[in-house]
Every structure is written in C-alpha cells, then in structure tokens.
C-alpha cells in the first residue's frame, strides 16, 4: 500500500492545517487541538476550492436553538475559502449541512516526528 511522509509533526501547531502532496494528489493535513492529525483531499466537494486557504475553526452546532448560539468544536471544523461550507475533521470530513457528503480522507500514522499518510 502506498504511503508517504507528508510533513513533520512540528510543522503544525494544534488548530492548524496545511497543504501537502501525496503522490500527485493535493492533500490537506489538519491538526486538531488534542494534537491528533487528519488528512483529506485538499479540494472542496462543492466547486473544488483549495481548502487549505480556508479556515480551521469551531462551529455553531446543531444544539443551537433559534436565536441562541451554541459555539464549540474549536479546531475541529474546516471551512471552505469560497462558499464557506463546513467539514467535520473528527467525523470523517462530513459536511455539517449535509452529512451524506464527505471529504475523501486518508489514513494517518505518526512515526517519530513524521506524519505519514496512506490509503
């Protein structure tokens, strides 16, 4: 199975993301606030925007009631730089407004301080 070092663990602080290459594929490496790493195809499922140019942030969640915001999940949501669609890093890259859609993802493993991704 093909695998590849895509960055060093020190390249990303918790709550950050960056683009990298996996073979010829443009991938997005995300690090959540608990220090975990995740990898997705760096292309929005909507119109293909480069997700690394967006934002890693929290979400106003579905616990919110009309007129009352519940904001949490900090560092666990990727928002697209174009139309702002939100993808849940910790839930297989599912889109918040339509969980049937998800970002294609990769498996991630850490060895020493290498971030390795594989299919």
């Amino acid at each position, binding site marked *: 199975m093909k695998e590849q070092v895509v960055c060093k663990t020190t390249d990303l602080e918790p709550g950050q993301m960056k683009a990298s290459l996996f073979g010829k594929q443009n991938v997005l490496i995300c690090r959540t606030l608990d220090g975990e790493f995740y990898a997705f195809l760096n292309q929005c499922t909507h*119109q*293909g*925007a480069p997700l690394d*140019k*967006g934002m890693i942030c929290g979400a106003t969640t579905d616990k919110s009631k009309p007129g009352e915001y519940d904001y949490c999940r900090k560092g666990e949501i990727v928002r*697209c*730089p*174009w*139309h*702002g669609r939100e993808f849940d890093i910790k839930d297989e890259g599912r889109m918040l407004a339509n969980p049937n859609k998800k970002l294609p993802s990769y498996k991630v493993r850490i060895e020493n301080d290498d971030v390795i991704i594989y299919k």
Partner: protein
Amino acid sequence: MAKNKIAIVDTDIHERVQYKDILKYLDEPFKHYITNCHWIQEKHMPYTQPAVAGVDRADAVLPDGRPAGSDLTFMQKQLLDDIGHEYGILTSALDPSPSSMHGWYEMATALASAYNDWQIEEWLEKDDRLYGSVHIAAQDRDAAVKEIERVGSHPKMVQVLLPIDDIMWGDPFYHPIFEAAEKHNLMIGMHHNEPPVYYGKWPRYFIEWHTLIPTAHMKQITNMIFNGVFDKFPNLGLMMIEGGFTWVPHIMWKMDQQYRDLRHEVPWLKRKPSDIFKEQIRVTTQPAEELTKQEFTSLIEQMGTDEILCFSTDYPHWDYDSPTRALPNMDPDLKKKIFAENAKAFYPKLPNS
C-alpha cells in the same frame, strides 16, 4: 485547473479600488476631504460577514494583505490566465456604488469620475481581455449624463452600471441616463448593492437577505418594463447581474398574466413583457443554484429562449462560481451560448468574432 476548451466571457468581475489609489484621479476639494478630513464612505449592511474572509474568496486576498480584487497582476494569475478568459467585464466594488450614497451628490459624482479614470488607466488599458462599466452618481441625473458623455465613448466601456438598491430606475426622471447610454451603444448593467429586501428593511440574518436578493432584481425588471423604458429606448439592453436565474420564468409568466388583465394602464407596452425580456434583458448565471442537467434544461425551456443566460464568476467574492463546476453539463451548443455567445451578442461594444 486546466484551460477551458471553450471561450469564456465572464460578465461579472469585481476589481476593487483603495482610496489611496484613486486620489490622483480625484479633483479638489474632494481629495482634501478624504486625505485631510478622513471622509469615508458610509456602509449600510448591518451584518458581520458570514464567510471565511468577509465577502471575498479567502484565497483571493492578496498575500501582502491588500483586499481581494485590488491587483491586476494577481487577478490575471488567479482568474484570467488560469481559467483562460476570452473577455471579462469589470463591475467594480466601489462600496457602496456612488448611486447608492446618501446625500452629498457632489462627492458621489466626483468619486464616480475618478473611479472611471482609474478603471480605464489601471485596468482596461492594461489588459486586452478586460472591458468596463461606466460609474455614475445617478441621483444627480444631469451630472450622470455628463459623465456618460465624458467616458462612454471609450472603446472598452460596454455598459453603465446602476446599483439595485432602494431607487427604482424605471422612473422617467432617470430616462435621460438611458438615452445617453443608448447613444453611446452602452447597455445598462444592474448589480445589487445593498437592497433592503423586507419591505424597505433589512432582515435579521444575512442568509435571509442573500436568499432574497433576486426579489430585488425582479422588482427592477418589473419597474423598468412597465415604465416603458424598453419601448422608449429600443436599442437599450439590461444585464441583471448576480441574482442567479431560476426566477426568470416566474417573473415572465407573472408579468404576462398581469399584462393580459391590466394592459389598459400601460398602453405604451407594444410587446408582452416576456417578449421584451427575451429581446432586451439578459441575466448573469452566478450565484447558480445546484441544478441537475434535467432541471437546468427544463428551466431554459421555460424561459422560451436559450439566449438570456450569460456566464459569470463574480470573482473575487465569496460566492464565486467556477466555470467548470457551477453549472450542470449541457449540450455543446448551449454551452457556447451561455459561456460566451450570449454576452457577445448582447454588448454591442464587445468584439463578436
């Protein structure tokens, strides 16, 4: 992104000025009011911006922090060269449009002129692909006509831009503007500025406002048609920019029905409203709702012509439409029309090779 095989005429690109860039084109004392008296334009919109980088595509903000759309070289690289535009029409972001400013008509008029000069010198004359829009402060109608006379004959100016806001442009008071535009082979481009969409007010949420922008487009079309603008100026065309297009059959049917009942009140209409629409009004595609090929084809059938829609990206705004992803697959002939030929046939000053 690979270059597109088909020609693309992009009917809505927002170049943006920063005051410091426009100052040299501004006459005194208006320059003084900005540099020494710190005048800034009013903003109307009450919302904190909901997307990642305000109303811009986050990846279109310049690496040095300047706002999206303010640098030609960057725009060439990210948009025109990358996609392979044949032509692009600039629709600006002088925010709000001079015609939407409240009070101080002199400042609005001066800004419109400075903007036109800046646009011509810094954009239109530097890139063959770019065509422009004449800015006016329409509230001072006579000054607006003078401005059209001053720059309207520039070979790369293709339309006069009016904001969709709270002024209904079909009112006879504004007809001299249409007369001047027609005289210079300019079309009218209408782009929403910050229209109040709820009975003259702002809704509570941006998402409500943004959902209902097309209602403001429908109001302007209804107003322009029934006030007889298109009968009075048969060579004038109207491009409705950035309202999407799925509402087009609805307003055609509605106006035709009303016309059959109430023609008595507007006897100057010599054609039914949907025919006026088909002949003199065009609509840009963005922001396109996600339709299947079947839904899209059926919608075009309902419009009764495939010559109304003209592709647009709205670069560099957050709700940008990608030419390869925003619209469903369509037959090659239709694709050619929507992506280039309809716009070329509409704007008399756009080369139609």
